[in-house]
């Protein structure tokens, strides 16, 4: 009837007993094991707004630009690199969205609007044949069936049997990708691939279930009893959140964010698919399922109407000119490509109301993507890598687009980088170039990953080799 000391001691012992819950979350590898280096290429459509993207100063610790603000948080800014003044013109041609797509990851010469060389993701992936279950993975978010714009919507090219190259569409169906990656029976989880613990996903699923059950039982009770079970439910939710927030994971299949999906191309699924893709990319990297991936949002010359994604985003502008690409003067639209062409000039001295609004909307769209990329980086940061650092520490995320901005130009591309490949690259820096070709960015990444064969990348005569002042 008192509180024996024995029980107090046992109570303290509870701290040890709580270990199994985080067992799956603790570092499982010695800190001396070298970690793999990974690269992720993120594509978003129809360019940026240069003046709102480019930091106002060059060099270390640049001030955050309006678009890059979400990546300039204390947690992410050390990883952030801005590469300005780089051109993506190796393909030549007439500067269309289609050509921008073809050149985007290949930096190759074009033929009939398509690339003639393989893309960087394929080139890197070729180095991991037999090393990882998947040489590279292509994730898509609504890259097909555009109501407007081009349907040729891939940026990955690989060698074609019998010569030449061919395009590779990204996988738009995250459920199919999930099965491919995380099913122990049909996916990369089986057959000698790294064992996936799946523990995090299961922990979350069980806690979800139990929190829900407390709510259900609470609903059958009254007064204090009801409040008590609701409180219990809330505490389980908090436990789940803290488990997710505090646990560093070594390798775990993510929770399958979407259980069923009638139409992966429905714009209403855009965000959910984006989230699920990011979960899968982080897990696939952490589990060494692959070291190279692309994540493509929509297509070049995007036909996406943002109102279909979520009207609350308010990515909507009113056309000022009758010539505005298919919109019509005075008409409001959330059509991405349409809005991208509304500004008459891209650095207007005295912008009219329509131009101002369009620039503001595109800026917000770009900042929204910066936020998504930031959340992806944080997902990577939550996984402990084999060297004891986070997976983000050994990753580089390269964010690109098919045109610099709505004027179709491909000079001074808005290239944003998160990650430094274990310190092989400088970060928290704005590097300003004057006309280097973007194949050199890929040569730099391949080199920084410690791979051979990346002295140059892309079209000869354009590429000069790695950006040495980016390399550490």
């Amino acid at each position, binding site marked *: 009837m*008192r509180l024996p000391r024995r029980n107090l001691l046992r109570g303290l012992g509870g701290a040890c007993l709580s270990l199994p819950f985080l067992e799956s979350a603790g570092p499982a590898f010695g800190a001396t094991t070298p970690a793999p280096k990974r690269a992720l290429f993120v594509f978003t459509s129809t360019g940026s707004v240069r003046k709102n993207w480019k930091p106002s100063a060059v060099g270390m610790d640049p001030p955050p630009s309006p678009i890059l603000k979400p990546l300039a948080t204390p947690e992410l800014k050390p990883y952030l690199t801005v590469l300005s003044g780089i051109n993506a013109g190796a393909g030549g041609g007439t500067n269309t969205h289609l050509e921008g797509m073809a050149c985007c990851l290949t930096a190759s010469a074009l033929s009939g609007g398509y690339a003639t060389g393989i893309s960087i993701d394929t080139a890197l992936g070729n180095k991991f044949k037999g090393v990882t279950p998947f040489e590279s993975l292509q994730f898509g978010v609504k890259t097909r069936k555009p109501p407007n714009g081009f349907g040729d919507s891939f940026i990955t090219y690989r060698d074609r049997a019998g010569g030449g190259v061919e395009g590779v569409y990204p996988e738009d169906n995250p459920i199919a990708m999930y099965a491919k990656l995380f099913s122990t029976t049909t996916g990369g989880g089986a057959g000698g691939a790294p064992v996936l613990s799946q523990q995090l996903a299961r922990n979350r699923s069980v806690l979800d279930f139990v929190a829900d059950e407390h709510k259900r039982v609470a609903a059958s009770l009254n007064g204090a009893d009801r409040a*008590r079970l609701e409180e219990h439910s809330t505490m389980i939710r908090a436990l789940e959140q803290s488990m997710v927030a505090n646990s560093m994971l070594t390798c775990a299949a993510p929770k399958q964010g979407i259980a069923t999906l009638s139409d992966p191309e429905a714009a209403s699924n855009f965000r959910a698919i984006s989230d699920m893709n990011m979960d899968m990319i982080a897990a696939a990297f952490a589990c060494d399922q692959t070291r190279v991936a692309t994540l493509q949002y929509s297509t070049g010359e995007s036909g996406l109407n943002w109102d279909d994604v979520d009207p609350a985003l308010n990515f909507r502008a009113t056309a000022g000119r009758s010539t505005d690409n298919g919109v019509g003067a005075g008409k409001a639209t959330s059509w991405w490509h349409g809005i991208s062409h509304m500004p008459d000039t891209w650095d207007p001295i005295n912008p009219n109301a329509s131009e101002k609004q369009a620039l503001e909307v595109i800026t917000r769209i770009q900042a929204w993507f910066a936020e998504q990329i930031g959340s992806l980086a944080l997902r990577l940061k939550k996984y402990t890598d084999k060297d004891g650092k986070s997976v983000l520490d050994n990753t580089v995320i390269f964010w690109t687009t098919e045109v610099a901005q709505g004027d179709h130009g491909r000079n001074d591309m808005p290239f944003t980088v998160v990650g430094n490949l274990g310190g092989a690259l400088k970060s928290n820096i704005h590097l300003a170039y004057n006309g280097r070709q973007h194949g050199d960015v890929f040569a730099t990444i391949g080199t920084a990953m410690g791979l051979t064969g990346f002295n140059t990348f892309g079209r000869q005569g354009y590429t000069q080799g790695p950006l040495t002042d980016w390399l550490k």
Partner: protein
Amino acid sequence: MKASVALSLAASLTLACSGSIEPMPGPQAGGPADIAGPSIGGSGGTGSPSKPPVGGPGGAAPTPSACKPADPLPAPLRRLTRREYNNTIADLIGDTSGPANSFSPEAGSTGFDTAADGAALNDKVVANYATAAETLARSAAKNLPALMGCDPVAMGEQACATQFIARFGRRVFRRPVSTDEQARYEALFASSRQLGGFAAGIEDVLRAFLMSPQFLYRVELGAGPGPRAGLTKLSPYEMATRLSLFFWAAGPDDELLNAAQSGGLNTVVQIKAQAQRLLMHEKGGRLVRDFYDQWLEADALDSLFRGATFTPTLAGSMRQEIQTYFDQLIRQRGAGWSELMTSRTSFVNDELARLYEIPGITGTQFREVMRQGDRHRGFLTMPGIMTLRAFPNEGSPIHRGKFIREQVMCEPKLMPLAGVVIPKIPPADAGKTSRQQLEEKTQVVEPCKTCHTLMNPPGFAFGKFDQVGGWHDVDDQKRPIDTAGTLSGTDVDGSFQGHVELIERLAGSKQANACVGKLWFRYAVARMETATDDCTMRDLSDAFTTAKGDVRSVILGLATSDAFLYR
């Protein structure tokens, strides 16, 4: 045997409380409305020596009473205690490691772990449940056929999982799993199976079961109005749960659940029959052992320091003796207060026998002995009890006296007044015995005098027992030890020569009898008694005051009282 002469304690208790006060509604088919009917104590008594008495033709006449009927059990939703959790887990999956030992201890107002207000809810509690569920499920899932009761290979995975959820869930929830619940657990199974395979699916179902509020809480939705205002009937499954958690500190077995299912827990006769079964079942010993263990604070023995001879093994033996004594005397022999206080019987192993100076006992096995001579009576002189109220190197008369007044007589806590500086008691020396030193410091002037005059004498009575219950005829200066004194402020005041005479006085004390009744009430009803419980309290007191009152009758009476049958 006691059973044949037992008084109808349960009858008097219940009749006095409800049967004779208000006309009961007529029996309702299948409903528990007839639970409190006047036949409660009058039937069912078997007289069989192997069964506890529940009444009989020779029972004492019910005492007419003008008190109010007792309140039902407290309404607050109660969680399983650590004991209940451990025992239930052992029943469900065979894990006897005591997974709840690391949970926060209960700290309710009654002093017993059953107290309804004893279990605070906080994030640590929630994390403990999650951790325990994870650990238990992981280890149980290593032997699926044993856990599931079906072979997934032979039967088919889905069929086996479906059956497992239904059958295992019934025991976890202490009622059948609803169709909706079945579907939800099957969905969880499917989801985890997809992630980690069949075993993972089952493991996570088990994990969710063990974290479910329907496992952790005693959810009582009730089954309609009871026989009078303010009372709500319990469903048969809820009744089964109350019974099993009370008698076994564990969930119901299949027999009890089947009884609930088949209408076998609807009448008081049925409930009493189950209560008897539970009490006399092997697991029924938990109730008696745990109640007395907690009352006497025997669980503290493990953490005491009493010098080199007091080993953890010895501490365990002492605790075991106390528990075995009450279990054997109450459950098997129908002992009442007087016998418990004065019996020469006890149960010892080799090391306890050495303390008792009983020759010829070897081995760690416990066996029954008669404690001859004038040293030992009942439980108060047991080594464990003496050890608990002692200093590391000698017995503590003040703690022993305080224990008797507070815990045996249920007197209010005797605490020094605020601001009183406790004087340093000088060691015994050639001039004065330690008793003389203590008396000079505590019994001469206020503010110490009043209380210490009450508590010191019964403490000095045990002066010949040292800090581990060993016997000394003289003190370390070879002087005789004075154990005489006068008991005051009780219903059995008077002088005594030593502890045996004191014990004999206490054995006849109504106050002490009533005290034990009160404590049983607190344990069973999970709260402190209030003015509205006067009737119940008086009946409990009356029951014990008959001196030969069989404790089993009191227990069964409590378990069939309104407070227990309704909410």
